[in-house]
């Protein structure tokens, strides 16, 4: 499995709400609007700055959605890169301390 060790944390400059199982996110920086599917929502909710992306994939995505770890790892990397380019996620090779508040409660 090829996943570079990455730590991800949610940006504080966003608005987000879980509606009908999908996470709605809007960037306060450029008003870009995103909806995340169930898998992406799990990654988003796990982005606490302390859990490595590989641990999120292996510990949560693979067992929950019964997907191939290699494919899930590649998709997760792509997803994280996309969101980080919009300033929605912060990505680091080290744990991100003082990451923003916990995600909103599920509906």
């Amino acid at each position: 499995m090829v996943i570079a060790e990455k730590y991800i944390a949610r940006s504080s400059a966003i608005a987000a709400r879980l509606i009908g199982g999908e996470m709605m996110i809007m960037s306060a920086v450029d008003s870009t609007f995103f909806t995340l599917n169930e898998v992406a929502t799990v990654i988003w909710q796990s982005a606490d700055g302390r859990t490595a992306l590989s641990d999120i994939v292996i510990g949560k995505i693979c067992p929950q959605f019964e997907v191939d770890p290699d494919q899930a790892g590649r998709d997760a990397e792509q997803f994280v890169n996309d969101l980080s380019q919009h300033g929605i996620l912060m990505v680091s090779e080290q744990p991100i301390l003082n990451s923003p508040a916990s995600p909103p409660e599920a509906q």
Partner: protein
Amino acid sequence: MSLLAEMNQKALSLGIPISVHLDITYRCNERCVHCYLDHDDHGEMTTAEIEDILNQLSDAGVFFLTLSGGEVLMRRDFFEIVEHARRLLFNVKLKTNGVMIREPEARRIRALGVEQVQISVYSHRQEVHDAITKLPGSLKRTVEAIRFLKSQGLKVVIANVLMASNLFDNVGVMALAKELGVSYTLDPTITPRMDGDTSTLALRIPGAELKQVFRSQELVGTVEEFCAPPPPPGEDIMDGFPCSAGHTACYITPYGDVFPCVQFPLPSGNLRRQKFAEIWRNSPQLKEVRSIRARDLPTCSTCAHVGTCTRCPGLAYMEGNMRGPSTADCEKSFQRTGIPSANMLRGRASSAIPLIQIQAGSFS
């Protein structure tokens, strides 16, 4: 369909109040001639009460939160409230006159991740703007606030309420918005006061002048398209509802009263006595609002404008019947297209109908 439209559709189908307008105070440092509020404090909610309501709104799925007033910065706990709202990851929009916003406040608003700040500007001319706000020097302070907010990279929208006393100053305000690098929105709607006083209606733009405003390409885009006669309504129009009020949106007063919309003062519950979810799901008033379709409107369903009119059910309610016409919107449809509304043809006059009086905090 855009993602935002999809989100609204999803919220509608799931019965989620995606947008809430919360007035945190009715107190204000301006005394605008057209304002519909009573600025005395009759027992505003405390910080703890507002924070509890924000928690409930978050649980209910509210995404867009507009904080307004009164003047929001009149509350000493204003930043505490915004901070709590942002901690709950609301998309926060502020409505303010900007008079109390200097550089430190602008910096703090930016740091909190507020999405947008809407500021009222009535004229580019100080004597006209200040005469409307009744606060000397207010235009200068407001424009300075816009510059402070812009310098922090915030999105600012100038809201230009148009009435007889600032008629045609919209051109100057648009130029000012352009110079400041901010967006501009115009609203010719003047509503009765919430206590039932209709004197503010005399400030409305007379019909002939409204016609002229609707023929301004800068405001409406393609005039021929904007002023075109309405097409015959299809079944989808007749099965539709007029706006999001009570469906995916509602309004909360500083005293905890819940209305379908800020312009629709139908008391539907009070958050000092009930939980938000209980009001949203079970209020008979909100259920009634949700039940109304265009085909249920006795006059408007027969009107040529039914599919294109901006009919506001709240203004209709304030005229005495939420299923009735809103005469201000009848006038707009007429001045836009030259075609009289069904209500006009029946010869009904808005001034003949007594207004419903609302006392803040009186719901039980």
